């Protein structure tokens, strides 16, 4: 029974959530340093509030994996798993606990680290609470699955009403989800490159008499590096959502929708910029640079989607406009001015061309 649950649910969970887990690990290992993890753990072991926040995150993760399993069990292809009910209850519950334990490994691994530190620091109550929360997540998950497996007809199943809450994906997250599930290689390559560029200019900045234009040039290169992602956005919209041109949605709302989509796509760049911003630059400088990155990307998107379309000469225009913008930066045109003009221009293009594209 353990083997069949592992081969069906556990493997499928990790396959489908590889990017999510990779992103969490990237954040945990890439952006937080070892001593920062230790500081967080020490704080959590001493502060019940911080510890409760961590428990909340773990519980949310446990809910996520539990909902995944419930959804998996509701598929027609999973109907054979309901034969598990024929096994003795103790054996069944044990198998479900194993299943839940395999699924919450992301939280459990960190819990082990925290318990170890708690024992070393002699904060016994905190260590015990961490252990109990993890056991609780495993037992609760097993009981939910037990309840579910006894009710094969999902339409009569109250777990569907109370536990199978599916959050609606807002329109601006449709494309980021497409990138995460269907274009992961493109996303990883692009984000690695842009992170490298932004970190590069940030590290270079203090080494000589550079000014903010160096960071702007880095952001400009990062924005133009999104070209292929933007081209895919055009493909994605035409392939699946031509119908959305029948929606009574104003140009401004479409514009804000694309702006939000790109802000989400550019979140990794924002984090890298915030983490590596040279000490001599203020947070406002950082914000203006991110705003500039966002504005140039929005301009590019609107040009590629609403003007160039599938026209290959569009890429030449993109290339030369990038060069032109770089020259303007060198002439000390401020980034905020570019951003304002760029956003207005992008909106104007969308307003004029939105219904004309096919």
């Amino acid at each position, binding site marked *: 029974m353990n083997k069949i649950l592992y081969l069906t649910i556990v493997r499928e969970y990790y396959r489908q959530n590889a990017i999510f887990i990779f992103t969490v690990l990237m954040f945990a290992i890439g952006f937080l340093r070892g001593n920062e993890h230790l500081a967080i753990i020490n704080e959590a072991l001493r502060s019940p509030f911080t510890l409760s926040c961590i428990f909340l995150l773990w519980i949310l993760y446990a809910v996520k994996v539990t909902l995944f399993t419930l*959804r998996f069990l509701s598929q027609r292809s999973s109907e054979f798993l309901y034969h598990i009910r024929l096994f003795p209850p103790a054996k069944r519950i044990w198998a479900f606990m194993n299943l839940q334990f395999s699924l919450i490994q992301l939280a459990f691994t960190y819990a082990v680290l925290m318990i170890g530190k708690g024992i070393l620091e002699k904060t016994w109550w905190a260590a015990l609470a961490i252990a109990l929360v993890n056991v609780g997540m495993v037992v609760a998950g097993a009981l939910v699955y037990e309840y579910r497996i006894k009710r094969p007809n999902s339409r009569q199943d109250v777990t569907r009403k109370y536990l199978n809450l599916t959050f609606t*994906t807002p329109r601006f997250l*449709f494309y980021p989800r*497409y990138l995460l599930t269907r274009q992961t290689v493109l996303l990883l390559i692009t984000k690695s490159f842009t992170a490298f560029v932004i970190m590069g200019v940030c590290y270079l900045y203090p080494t000589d008499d550079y000014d903010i234009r160096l960071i702007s040039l880095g952001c400009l290169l990062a924005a133009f590096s999104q070209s292929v992602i933007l081209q895919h956005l055009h493909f994605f919209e035409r392939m699946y959502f031509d119908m959305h041109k029948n*929606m009574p949605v104003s140009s401004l709302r479409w514009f804000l929708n694309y702006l939000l989509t790109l802000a989400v796509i550019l979140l990794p760049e924002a984090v890298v910029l915030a983490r590596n911003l040279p000490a001599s630059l203020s947070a406002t400088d950082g914000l203006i640079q991110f705003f500039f990155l966002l504005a140039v990307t929005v301009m590019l998107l609107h040009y590629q989607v609403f003007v160039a379309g599938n026209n290959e000469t569009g890429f030449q225009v993109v290339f030369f406009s990038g060069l032109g913008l770089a020259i303007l930066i060198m002439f000390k045109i401020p980034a905020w001015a570019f951003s304002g003009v760029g956003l207005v221009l992008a909106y104007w293009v969308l307003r004029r061309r939105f219904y004309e594209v096919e």
Partner: protein
Amino acid sequence: MLKVQNFTKSYSGRKIIAVDELVIPDGIHWVKGVNGSGKSTFFRSVAGIVPYEGQISWNGTDQKTQPIAYRLKVNMSEAEPLYPEFLSGYDILSFINKAKQGTREQLYALAERFDTPAYWKNPCGTYSSGMLKKVAIISAFLGSPELIILDEPLITIDVKSVGIVYELVKEFYEEKSVNFLLSSHQDFIFENLPILHSYQVENQTIFQV
């Protein structure tokens, strides 16, 4: 009343369908035509999905000069809907319902009629073509439309769902005065639907039969 004037739709310079003047009165209308005749292109133009030359208006609301008001009144369901496999039918319908200013109760009531709540929160990649089609048909009834275009509404769905489509069309027409443009290769059951006129799409134009 749907008014089409000086209408031409071309792809890469090749004319697909053109009509100088066409007035379709209120009611349920059946648009016929062989595969590739331009029925769907005409429907997509009326729904405002593809650009064209000319003017299309619904009861005086012009599609090009009043894009939002027009789209609140004209809904469409495509013949072969295609949705990203990682999104759920619920994601798609929630967005369309919000855009069309429909209510949650309306969405759930329509979904219940087609039995979609049993699967609509699963990703579209797990749906059969009939399940996808039901999502598309539901989307056309959301909000407060005055004209609903159903392109091949009877294909890929089961007999029970065909009956529900007939019921819905009749109910929306009789109780809410909603007008319909329908296309189908199958004959509609006339005793079930009070079809006012039939139109033929042929020789790159559309005319009343």
